[in-house]
């Protein structure tokens, strides 16, 4: 239920600065680093600036001494002019996401040498991400006065070609999987209006947009080149250039532009690490519709018809757009469940209906509990949730009770809901796979499957009735992006925690002896598509498993057991003498420590002093059966697959008892 006073008054969001300030004053920032995201939730621009300034000088190694598990990213910053000023903003933005940067700022304006020379300090830093900041003087530094639009066009095209070559150099010299980040260049009025002819001014406007468009078309985020579009930042009211600091300090960007750039860059980095949020949990009254369900009744709430109602309708369409790209939608509402069901069913004119939500929690318990319930039902981590509510009290409850979840502050003005929701790119991801688009339907089926499980008196009978089919074979080209995504986004069932970009998966799959397998699953509830990946290779007559990843959506159905036992059987059939694997502890995969030993592997090494990796070996003498309720097809190589198809063989690994 909405509290109108709270909703329309000043948001009661916490003011984090004093506490960050206190930590800084006491020299406790490194020790308290994991608390920083919480302290910065809801921070305004000044508070974020302060945070960045006191966090940037921290020694990352000191933070890691206190908290060895802190996610880190190696960043190199270069650019056309003075670029060091972006560092505090970037540090503050990354800290909001709990990411600790190890940043190298390269020489002022030396981006050509930094990126072209394989022996440059930039490459010695081994960056995961290189930010090449293109300020508003880009191209113009190569145009001599007096000039005509055609000369700007030539200089811009030359610049774009240089950037394209530098991107190739970066791909060759930076570590595998690294990403170079370029940006579009804002066009300044002090250049357009040096042309007095309106026709020429239009020509300049056109060719400049062409230059920026060409830059954007070069982007291939999954292959190591991203381009940040700064136009949405400047069109939201951020001034691009500071003429005085440009003239006297070669620092042409305003602090606000760099702050906007840093915000977008941090989300890009978050997305590249596969840390995108998965589920959007929404309140109903005052969030998705106008009115209070408990007072106005299911018929009384609106999302169209009135001016205010239509604003809620527009917000629902924004939410629906996110859902179409794989964001799971859920409702968490303090209402009677029957009333919510009726309201969702009775308004076909609403853009969102009951079928758009994978699950609904409607009760009178705390919303923090509600979010935990939703995460549990969907089999996702509670911190993969974004929670949006117009009531400050509920937001505080979720902030306090669900650490790591993102909380979107909505208020009494529904026309501002869309931009509040999109202010942070919580769901940003380098590329969208087919899996993403189908995800909501798959999770809805998961919920149906669980209801069926609850209705089944005996779990074995439930599994037997699933008609589960698992197909494991070399990944097809179109599946490589999905495999990369699984390695990036899967935390619980990720044997070594190794993260791979699409390009790295492609390279692995093309290497000699590569065994890069996609795990596909389907049952009577529907097709789950690619749910797991095996990254392995054959070498010296043995199979070396570099990583094994399985979406948590499908855990607990015997798929993991089937894949491992099937893999061992296939290795033996292929004449291999042993299978090697390793478990490297991460923050979320502790449960996998016993996975290999539980399947007949013996521990042969570790824990490794650096990574704490344990190494295992299976001699392939005694093999366990594939669970009887799983119909498994598993091929290690395309040749096996081809042969099996020719022989009309149904399964490579039939269940057996030995």
């Amino acid at each position: 239920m909405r509290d109108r006073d709270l909703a329309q008054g000043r948001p009661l969001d916490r003011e984090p600065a004093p506490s960050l300030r206190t930590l800084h004053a006491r020299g406790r920032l490194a020790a308290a680093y994991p608390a920083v995201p919480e302290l910065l939730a809801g921070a305004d621009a000044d508070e974020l600036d302060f945070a960045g300034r006191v966090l940037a000088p921290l020694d990352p190694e000191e933070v890691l001494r206190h908290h060895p598990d802190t996610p880190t990213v190696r960043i190199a910053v270069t650019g056309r002019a003075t670029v060091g000023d972006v560092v505090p903003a970037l540090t503050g933005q990354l800290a909001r996401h709990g990411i600790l940067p190890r940043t190298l700022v390269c020489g002022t304006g030396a981006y050509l040498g930094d990126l072209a020379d394989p022996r440059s300090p930039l490459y010695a830093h081994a960056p995961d991400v290189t930010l090449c900041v293109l300020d508003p003087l880009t191209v113009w530094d190569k145009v001599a006065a007096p000039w005509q639009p055609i000369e700007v066009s030539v200089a811009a095209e030359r610049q774009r070609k240089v950037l394209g070559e530098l991107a190739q150099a970066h791909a060759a010299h930076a570590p595998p999987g690294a990403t170079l980040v370029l940006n579009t260049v804002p066009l300044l009025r002090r250049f357009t209006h040096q042309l007095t002819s309106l026709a020429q001014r239009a020509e300049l406007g056109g060719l400049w947009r062409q230059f920026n468009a060409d830059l954007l078309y070069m982007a291939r985020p999954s292959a190591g080149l991203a381009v940040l579009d700064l136009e949405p930042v400047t069109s939201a009211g951020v001034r691009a250039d500071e003429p005085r600091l440009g003239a006297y300090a070669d620092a042409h960007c305003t602090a606000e532009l760099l702050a906007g750039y840093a915000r977008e860059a941090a989300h890009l980095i978050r997305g590249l690490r596969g840390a995108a949020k998965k589920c959007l949990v929404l309140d109903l009254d005052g969030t998705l519709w106008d009115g209070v369900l408990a007072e106005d009744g299911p018929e009384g709430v609106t999302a169209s018809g009135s001016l205010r109602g239509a604003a809620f309708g527009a917000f629902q369409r924004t939410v629906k757009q996110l859902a179409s790209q794989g964001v799971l939608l859920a409702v968490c509402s303090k209402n009677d469940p029957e009333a919510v069901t009726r309201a969702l069913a009775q308004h076909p004119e609403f853009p969102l209906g009951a079928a758009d939500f994978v699950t609904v929690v409607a009760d009178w318990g705390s919303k923090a509990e509600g979010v935990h319930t939703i995460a549990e039902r969907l089999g996702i981590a509670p911190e993969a949730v974004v929670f949006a509510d117009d009531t400050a009290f509920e937001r505080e409850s979720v902030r306090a009770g669900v650490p790591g979840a993102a909380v979107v502050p909505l208020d009494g003005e529904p026309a501002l809901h869309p931009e509040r929701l999109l202010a942070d790119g919580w769901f940003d991801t380098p590329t969208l796979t087919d899996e993403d688009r189908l995800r909501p339907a798959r999770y809805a089926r998961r919920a149906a499957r669980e209801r069926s499980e609850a209705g089944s008196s005996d779990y074995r009978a439930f599994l037997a009735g699933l008609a589960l089919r698992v197909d494991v074979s070399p990944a097809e080209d179109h599946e490589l992006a999905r495999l990369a995504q699984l390695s990036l986004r899967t935390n619980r069932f990720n044997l070594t925690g190794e993260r791979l970009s699409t390009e790295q998966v492609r390279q692995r799959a093309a290497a000699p002896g590569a065994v890069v397998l996609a795990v596909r699953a389907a049952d009577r509830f529907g097709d789950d598509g690619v749910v797991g990946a095996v990254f392995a290779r054959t070498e010296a007559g043995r199979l070396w498993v570099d990583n094994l990843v399985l979406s948590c959506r499908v855990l607990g159905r015997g798929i993991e057991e089937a894949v491992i036992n099937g893999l061992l059987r296939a290795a033996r059939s292929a004449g291999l003498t042993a299978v090697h694997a390793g478990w490297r502890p991460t923050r979320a995969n502790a449960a996998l420590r016993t996975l290999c030993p539980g399947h007949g592997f013996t521990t042969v090494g570790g824990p490794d002093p650096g990574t704490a990796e344990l190494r295992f070996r299976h001699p392939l003498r005694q093999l366990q059966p594939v669970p009887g309720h799983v119909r498994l097809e598993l091929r290690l190589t395309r040749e096996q697959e081809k042969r099996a198809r020719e022989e009309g063989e149904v399964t490579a690994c039939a269940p057996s008892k030995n």
Partner: protein
Amino acid sequence: MRTVEELIELANTHLGTALAPADAAAELTELAEWDSVHLLRLIALLEQELGRPVPVDAVLQARSLRDIWAVAVGA
């Protein structure tokens, strides 16, 4: 802003520095607490505080906090 001490207070509050009044006359390059990335932000803070523009070229050439204060307030 009437004194250089107020400028130091402004910097400490917004930049997280721990500058002391005794640092006012020291060369900026000698001050362990000072980082050149702070200067551009300090100019914005000064203009906000004074409610008028400061001569940016002169501030950028100032060698101590007292110099910055002097050109900012026009002393």
